[in-house]
């Protein structure tokens, strides 16, 4: 279907949530979901998912590994609202309650190719020390009403967060028809390398 005048462009995202680095916690799992603008629609693939619980390695390896694959294709008419992946990590606390260990979001890279992103994670803070204590005691830490909150800027000013760790995500991006619609996201050197390869 080689149309010369496409009406949408496609962004195909392959990749994986490789793992995380949470120095203090273990037995974590993560959820992800894509957040995108009005002009975007997933055409295939999973929009959200939940990973297995990963334990830390026995040896000196501090990182948790999920290697949780991502595969989704978006179609869009407008780069505004470029998809973001919002990741939230959960794990048991000392009493065995599942509590959130981090929220984070990152834009899907714009340029085709392989990209590795390290997403810093954070959790909302309790509003007071007493709250903190009780939430710790009861295993009900403050959470965002919606994990997608971290992908938007509105209303964030009312929250206070604490940094927790990082999650590493690797993306392989393929785009189609972006250029035909007039969006040139490829950096010049990559383009020249590409043409060089072709030529």
């Amino acid at each position: 279907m080689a149309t010369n005048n496409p009406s949408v462009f496609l962004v195909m995202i392959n990749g994986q949530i490789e793992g995380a680095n949470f120095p203090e916690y273990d037995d974590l799992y993560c959820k992800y979901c894509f957040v995108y603008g009005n002009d975007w629609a997933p055409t295939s693939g999973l929009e959200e998912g939940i990973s297995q619980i990963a334990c830390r390695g026995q040896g000196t390896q501090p990182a948790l590994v999920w290697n949780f694959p991502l595969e989704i294709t978006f179609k869009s008419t407008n780069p505004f609202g470029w998809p973001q992946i919002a990741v939230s990590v959960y794990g048991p606390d000392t009493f065995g309650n599942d509590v959130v260990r981090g929220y984070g979001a990152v834009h899907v890279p714009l340029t085709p190719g392989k990209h590795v992103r390290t997403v810093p994670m954070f959790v909302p803070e309790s509003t007071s020390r007493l709250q903190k204590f009780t939430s710790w005691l009861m295993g009900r830490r403050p959470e965002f009403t919606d994990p997608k909150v971290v992908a938007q800027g509105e209303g964030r000013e009312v929250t206070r967060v604490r940094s927790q760790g990082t999650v590493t995500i690797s993306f392989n991006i393929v785009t189609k028809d972006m250029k035909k619609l007039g969006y040139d996201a490829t950096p010049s050197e990559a383009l020249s390398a590409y043409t060089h390869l072709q030529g």
Partner: protein
Amino acid sequence: AESLLQQEALAEPASRLQGLRDRDPLTRFDTEVRPPVRLVPERCQRLRCRDDVATPQVDSGLPTAEEAYNFFTFNFDPEPLEEAAEQKKERRFVEDRGVEEEEEEGGGGGEEEAQVEDGGEGESGSEEEDKEEDGELFIDETAQDFLEVKKAEYLGYHSRVQRESEVLFTPSLRTVPTSCKVPENMQPRYLEEEGLYVGERPPVSLANQNILENRILQQDEKWFGDDGRVLALTDPIKQSSTRPPLFNLEEDLDPALQTVYRKALKTRHASRYVAGLGETAGRCQLDVDVSGLIFSHHPLFSREHVLGVRLVQLYDQHLNRQHRNITGLLTDKVVHAFLLVLLLTCLLCLANRNTRRLRDVEQEKDRTLLKSTLKVWKEMKALREFQRFTNTAYKLHLRKQEVNQSRDEQDFEEEIQMELVELQGELEEEYQRKISQYRQQLEEWKAWRKKQVDLLTGADDEDEDEQEEKDLGSEPPKPEPPERQELSLLEQQVREKAARIRRKPGEPILVPEVTLSEQLTYKPFYFFPPFSDVARRSLFVKVLYNDKEVSRTDRRPLGADFRVHFGQIFNLKIANWPESVRLQVFEASGSSSALLAEVFVPLPESTVLTGSAPPQELEFSSSQRVTFNHEGVGSDVPFSFEADGSNKLTLLTSGKLSCCVSWAVGENDIPLAPPTSQTPGGIHGALRQTDAIACIGASGLSDMKRLSKWAAESRLDPNDPSNVVLMQLLTVASSGEVQVPDYFRLEQLQEEFNFVTDEELQKSRRFRLLTLRSQEVVEFRNYKNVPAVEREVSEKVFQDYEKRLRDGEVVDTKEHLDPHRAVVAKYLKKIRESVMNRFLIAKHHFLLSDLVQEDEVPSIGVLGLNIFKLAEPKRPLKPRRKERKKVTAQNLADGNIKLLVNIIRAYDIPVRKPHPSKPAVASKSARSFTEAFVAAQSSQSALHGNDWPLNQVQVRPFVEVTFQRSVRQTTTADGPNPCWNEELELPFSAPNGDYSTSSLQSVKDEVFINIFDEMTFDITEDDRERGSTVHTRIEKHWLGSVKIPFSTIYLQSRIDGTFKVQSPPVLLGYSKERSLAGEGGYDSVLSLSEGSFVTLFITIQPQLIPGESVREKFDSQEDERLLHAAEAFQRDAALRFPGRPCLTTVIDISGKAVFITRYVRPLSPPQELLDAFPNSPQEATELVARYVSLIPSLPDSVSFTSICDLWSTSDQFLALLAGDEEEHAVLLCCYFLAMGKKAWLIIGTAIPEGPTAYVLTYEQGRYLIWDPGRGQYYGQYDTFCPLQSVGCLINADNVWFNTQVYDAPMRMGFDVSRSKLWKPFFSRAFPNPGLSSVQPEELVYRRVDKVAAAELQDRIEKVLKEKIMEWRPRHPTRWNRYCTSTLRHFLPKLEQSRGRDVGDEHRLELQSMLGDYRISGFPLNVPFSELQPIVEAVYSTGVHNVEVSNVEFALAVYVHPYASNVLSVWVYLASLVRTR
């Protein structure tokens, strides 16, 4: 001689060593025997004889000082004895040393050795062989003779030390006693003790000081001061490091420290490389040809030279002139012109005269030149004679050209005559001019004379003025006639001139010729200093390129003729832009050299190439003052040729340098010039790369106009690539686009980024779509997939939006049937929009709870409850509903939300009437007002005795729930009090898939809960089949409905309770079952209210968090203090009783906060209502309530999408004819007040409205609660009163908040005077300031319009009939006219009785009329707002669903008009089935 000897010594042994080395290399270094030593005698002899030849003076037997030195210093250990013995052979050792040295050197540098060897090869080649032989002999025979083996001499350590101590002096470290240091017999003087200042001595360690002192003492020098210490200056080092403090930086700074501003210097050679350096690096080549130098004056010039040079100069001048031949040219011109003059008379005479003058000047010059040449020559000759020698070769030959005497004379005469004639003409002309002038003057004079005469002769009456004038006007002199110049005089003048400037006729033409053929007769050169000097002097030229010396010529001696020939060409490969080429002439005498002069060579143009470039002669001079004490005239020194020293001349060193600078030509005849040498001024070329303007040598040209002017003048080549930038600039400048604006702009780059104009951008549909979406315009708020390209955005997208915008202006009357309603609808829409905008702004303010979920800190009570909960039974007998987790609306999608409707039970469903029954005559009891709250009366007793067969099914009701066109129904139950206990699940989808809070709030859908009676008819035709076949038809008959708006469910999150079923006043074929169980307590309560009830529980799964009210502070015109008090009151109330609504300020329709009591004010109801029942106040009251209830209700929360309640005043309410409970309640309350009742507004919660407003009246010692929306009233103790809780009471004076334990009306007291129960807002502490009402003084009602009502009635009927037929597409719809007319007859009666107690009566009537029809039907009564709700209501009854083939329908509509266009619409709908 010495050096020669040494050379010899160096050369000789080397060759020998070579031989030795060849011979026995092994023993050479490891034997003690040193071969050179062995060779000594023979070599010595040879050397000696050689010495004899070369240096005869060395043959004295004594050693020289040097030899002696060598003797002692060198260590010739091996042969001390021999040495001693053979004193006379000392020289040999010298030789040896040389050899040794040579050997050492040879070890270091083999090359040198080889060289030496080569040099000496020819000389010593033959000798070598002999020597080798000799050497052999020596070794064999004479080794013993020359060697003596001795024990090594050793000097003992002590003896050596002793011997050394004789020579050496070691200063001791001990302190020198002071007595030794001061002069004898003197005490040391301490200046310090005498009070004199002694500076501090520099620190020296004691040991060093002692050593020094000892040493000084030994040397016996006077270095000690009076105090016996070594003399020393004070320590010059300051104790503390200091720096002149710079206190006041600006003013008094030491001028030496003053900072001086220097302009930043550009690195001169940076970025001055030739353009296109990459390819042409080093390709440019400049050839500098320095060919020679001629001095026109040199300090070493003798006088003769000076004269000679002058002679040459004059001669050159002469040659030059001759070459140009100006005189001849002009002479010809004169002659020709004269001929022309003759022809054209004196037309050109003036021009000719000028030419002649010029010719004369030139001729004169020629002549003086010749004369001076001759004079110089004469002088020179005289000088030569005087000094008796000639040291310059200049010689002047005067060639005489013989001329024809007569011819010459003739020519001369002719010339003179010609000139004469011309002069005559000239003079004549002059004369004529003068003559005419004279004549004119004469005329004037004559006229004057005449006047004078007239005056004198005329009458005396001439006035004095004339006289005065005569006196004043001085007598003009009588003009003299001009004299003609004498011709002879003229001729004489001409001849004189000719003699001066012209060759005399017959005189031979002298042609001077300077040759260098004179015989030079020098004085002996030793005695002529200038010449010896000249011989010693040499010259060279340095070539400086860009102020850097790149090369220099060889030194060339200054010739006797003071010419130097270099003839050298330097090829300069250049990388930098040429800026200057400079040649410096240096004069060197001996080893010193002095700069004589500096010549700047103009840079060649790129077309000047080597080979074609002409050599240039560049003059130079130097102002150096040089004087000599010999014949040289020197420079800048006055001298004279005359013997008496007069007529002094001062000459400066000067000369001509002939050189040539040009661009080289490459291999392929490519000029190696820099590519852009358009501008010969290379200085600007350097900047060419950076600044287009500066590179053309016009860096100051900031003005574009001037630049373009300059460009036009200089005729730039527009095709030259180097001018591209400039040309571009110029075209822009000339087109006038670039103008320096006289304003300042902040975002000067903005225009660069404006890729389209604003108009175009506005035209873009896609842009518009995006803009509207981002503005959250309703139609586009959640628009998905805005097309990527403009053309895919269709205009249709905007149709709705544009239509809406248009509709804002135009009122569409078709939709609304009533123009007034249309206006109202439009007005409502406007209000809604404004509120919406307000809401949208508020929506973007977030609270922490919006974003973060956090459990609240549990209080002790909660903890305690939780502990108790542990003890609770796991499965309680009466389970309670648990609070569910709330879900925010944002992450929802279609299908996620379900509406759960729990139908639990119903009470008092009407029961069927046995069809063939005799009409029971029921006494129509006039239900009195008081009966409502007295115990049940016996009015229903009529039914008691009805012949209801016990075995027959009374009613089989089921419930059907309709929501968003999806229908669910329960199973069928039996009896009038059925119990279903069923949960129905209905899907919910939000409009446009927008699950945001605001969108959900604006959902207008309603949940219809309809109760039907399921009837089965046996339609088995054949009785025989009855045993085996069941053939029934099921009909459902509508019994009543409950409507609950979705917004109520959403806002309250659940609805739980028993609701009164809205049932029609008359249900054909049904009647209320009355208590069969007889008079009982329960029955009496039950019968208090009529109608059926249904118990429901409705909620949404998952639970949605209702939107918060707009967190916006509304501005207000209320007193600040009042507002504060209100806020405090409300806060206090919320703190104490969180569930109880408390209102103090409300928002009026313009969005301002208004204190609530201002709304309450007695307002009289329409007079006709009061007149209707003049003698029954109860009836009138009920009628008023009905009137209010007939005003359509429109929940604010639906229309305004938020919880912000707008309170409109009563006149606004009546004008709008729409409002929610508050407006109804306020109006009703105002009416009651006007009717003289005690009335209050109740703010509380009710079912199903939620927070609402009711009206409380106090009559006859009892409190009545009025539901303003339905026009019904309830007693305080009415069980089925929909009002569930009471928050506060309001009247015109005060607000009371309920502080009782209970808030249910049945369990509380309404006596507001009891401060224990009610907390007043205005108290003694804060009295009512006397708030004026916002309500109008009086309500103005419009007259009842019966015509419009009748018209509307017809239209409604027509529309409904069409709709019913439309709903029954598969069956014919027949209308029973008879029945319809009967029904139509009934409806006004129903209106009159307000739907009460007419059922039996007219059922009887109908029954009698239509005996053989089974009728089911009912009248519906709705307040009229729009057509659509009526249609919906009719549809929901499902009357049209009867599918019996022989069914007939009857439809009647009645519209009863009230004042101010309040309309009551009755629709009577019935289906008739013929029973047989």
